[in-house]
């Protein structure tokens, strides 16, 4: 599958060079960064739809304040695309500094868009001392949905797409699209998925596409018209069969994965999706989910990707943002993040106990995200 191309060799080389040259720079400079950051507030624009994430960030705020005199203000957005929109507006208005956002939680198409428009602080990764801890060799952290990170963002956590079903829905942990369709046939109205362009809803479509096209290699390259015309019909055939058996006969969808979880807890739905392999366990412990549920993944593998922290080029509190990032990828912060009592999001650094990982499937190239969303909406909305 691997084909030689100049950029594919060149880019890691540049990244490595940057990492190496930045190391010396960061060491000398870090104390002055800490000094500059003291007393500042970092406006962290991040999705606010998860209670456990919100609680975790509150803890991070307390710790940052205690250790470094930096406040982390979580500005909750329902979709981080809002922040991208705002940065574009700033750019159009020529606002090169004094921006409202200091730190972003992004990946995939949002990162792709910000990188394309040159809206992110360059060489961010190289100036963070704790980058030494990152498992860059073991995990595919330097490619965000097929797009090189190029030091513009810092890995924060990992996601693996998995399904959680009421007990007895599926007989084995690994399932196929056919098994899902059979279940929906036998239990009409009990299956649904978050409405694309919801991130997790689109990932569900991607997983189906992988399975239905036998993992066609064109999925991992920029989507061209030919590939779209060749690959998508299999998905639409499948969804045309599935939709009449969905909740509300596929005329309305959960707005988000979180809503899907709530309806799973209610028993309205028999299935929910997550990007976090430990979310089910965390939810059961918190009393948010009954105990008779089980975790599943698609037989061809769970789509695996990472999520990142980035600083806008026009951020006001860049030093404080760096301090926050450095803290968030530190061992203790990652340990707590991975703990199912708190958030349960897999770590990007080595922890004492190895977390539970599912068999992996590669993330599609970022361009497929837009294609899938657009075609899905055109077809079903």
């Amino acid at each position, binding site marked *: 599958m691997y084909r030689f191309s100049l950029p594919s060799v060149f880019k890691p080389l540049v990244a490595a060079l940057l990492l190496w040259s930045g190391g010396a720079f960061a060491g000398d400079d870090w104390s002055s960064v800490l000094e500059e950051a003291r007393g500042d507030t970092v406006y962290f624009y991040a999705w606010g739809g998860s209670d456990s994430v919100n609680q975790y960030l509150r803890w991070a705020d307390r710790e940052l304040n205690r250790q470094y005199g930096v406040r982390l203000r979580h500005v909750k957005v329902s979709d981080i695309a809002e922040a*991208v929109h705002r940065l574009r507006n700033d750019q159009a208005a020529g*606002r090169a500094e004094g921006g409202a956002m200091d730190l972003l939680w992004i990946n995939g198409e949002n990162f792709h868009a910000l990188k394309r428009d040159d809206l992110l602080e360059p060489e961010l990764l190289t100036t963070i001392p704790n980058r030494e801890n990152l498992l860059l060799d073991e995990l595919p952290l330097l490619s965000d949905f097929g797009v090189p990170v190029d030091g513009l963002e810092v890995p924060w956590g990992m996601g693996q797409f998995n399904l959680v079903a009421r007990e007895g829905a599926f007989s084995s942990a690994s399932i196929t699209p056919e098994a899902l369709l059979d279940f929906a046939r036998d239990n009409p109205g009990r299956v649904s998925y978050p409405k694309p362009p919801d991130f997790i809803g689109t990932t569900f479509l991607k997983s189906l596409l992988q399975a239905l096209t036998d993992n066609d290699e064109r999925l991992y390259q920029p989507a061209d018209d030919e590939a779209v015309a060749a690959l998508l019909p299999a998905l639409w055939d499948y969804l045309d069969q599935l939709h009449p058996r969905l909740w509300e006969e596929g005329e309305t969808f959960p707005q988000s994965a979180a809503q*899907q979880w*709530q309806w799973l807890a209610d028993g309205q739905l028999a299935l929910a999706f997550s990007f976090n392999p430990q979310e089910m366990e965390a939810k059961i412990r918190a009393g948010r989910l*009954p105990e008779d549920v089980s975790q599943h993944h698609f037989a061809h593998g769970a789509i695996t990707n990472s999520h990142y922290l980035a600083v806008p080029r026009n951020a006001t509190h860049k030093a404080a943002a760096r301090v926050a990032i450095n803290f968030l990828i530190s061992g203790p912060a990652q340990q707590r993040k991975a703990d199912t009592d708190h958030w349960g999001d897999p770590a990007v650094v080595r922890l004492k106990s190895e977390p539970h990982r599912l068999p992996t499937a590669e993330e599609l190239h970022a361009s497929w995200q837009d294609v899938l969303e657009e075609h899905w909406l055109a077809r079903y*909305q």
Partner: protein
Amino acid sequence: MARALPINRTLSLRTGAGLCLALLVGVPVLASLLPYLGQVVDLNSPAITGFLNSPGLVTALVYSLLLAFTAPLLACYTALAFGYYRPRRLLGWLSPFLSIPHLAFAVGVLFLFSPTGWLVRALHSLLGVFESPPASALLADRSWFTLFWVLLLKEIPFLLLMVQSALTQIPAERYLQAGQTLGHSRRASWWLLVVPELLTRLRLPMAAVVIYTLSVVDVPLLIGPNLPGVWAQQVFQWQQDFSAQAAHSAVVGSLLLLALALTLLWLNRQHERVYTGLLRWHRRTDLMTPRWLSRVGSALQSVARLWLPLMALISLGVLAALLVWSFAGSWFYPDLWPGAFSLSTWQSEWPFLLPLLGQTLRLALISASVGLVAALVCLEWQARRDRYWPQWILLLGLFVPQLPLVMGWQFGLSAFRLDPHWGWVLWAHCVFTFPYAYLMLSGDYRRFNRRWLLVGQSLGYSSLVCWFRLLLPILKQPVIYAWVIAFSVSVAQYLPTQLVGAGRVVTITTEAVNIGSGGDRRLLGFYALWQMLLPLALLLLAALIIWRRRPALNNNPSTDNGVA
């Protein structure tokens, strides 16, 4: 009468009224229009083609048109049918319903009537039906009908209040008696003689309700359909999206929203004509109402009579549901009660609620006061001149859909590189508290018998003293209620807070919507509960003030002033 006053005071009142009008109506509309037009000029034909190709266009338009046409109309007739009974102390009943924010009400109604709501759970535990949640209960978690019912129920109290206020402006009792001497039943006289008069006076309140229904975003985001959503929701989502096409679509979409608004306002005007036309036709064909129609009418009228107890019951249910969810530990279908009650939501959220409450209260108290004072200044100035401005000018903020208005502000702030700031949000809130305060007050204020002021002045008191010692105590009740309603309007603002405040100014309402996207019922219940409690607490306080300290002079403005 102005001549009796010192010139400079009249002048300063005029300046004040002019300033209020400029700052709360003129500037906001212009400040939105100019940057907005800038965006409109940027549109080109690919942008419009792209917009026309966006999926679900027609469905979303039809959803909105149907919703903003039927819900206010049905609410209007329910209010008219119920208004016939003219129950005593109606204001006391209505104000709690009025003060509940739409969002909290919507959340609570879902907790009660969704397929996993309390009602279905109660049926399960009583009758053993619905072993698993029914596919379709009274209200689906998300659907057009859910949205329709919530908005309908929530709009009736406002229209009923407006009916009450209009009733004090016309000699309704005499109309009813006249109708009866012509041989109509009392009820028929109400519909034949009084209602046409009321409809004329309901024109502006109805327009406000129609525009609200068309442009509300937070409630459909939570409970509306989403494949596609209603039109305002679509435009809001384009506005939040970052692609260039979405930005263009948001502008074209908001233009279309304005066109929808104009269509609906026109339909609203036609509705009144159709009603009187029908009456005329009915009069020409036969003087007496056919028996079957009268039967159907009386049946519907009796149903409408149930509205008050029903609404009281639902509101109490909403309060209870929010309260119980906020204290719930694990609670799964079909349990009627949580498996465990727990303080954990309250304990973990309390420290974070306090700054939110502070922010919400600060915005609401100041903007309600500004709105109220501005309304009083404008009313007083008009009363002294004894000439009234056309109401629609003062209420303009209610007749422009909120989304294009706020989008224009956002474009403007960004173009002038102004930081998202608390002050801008406050100003944005005032733009909406002012018209509501004005609408709540204007009826009673205009009916106030100004001879009292003359009497006071002839006794040697200055006009200012007379205003404070005579007018204000007599109008205390409507003034306080107007303030409370303006307060709850501010508490409930979502779009201006979210867009103008850039997510940095966070109130209970924006937090509740953001948490709503996460679906956790405990948190949603907790924040919706607080959104509901704030105005209710203020209302209780207001009721206490009114009840404790009745003015000695006169405690019932409407009977005194109605004759004047």
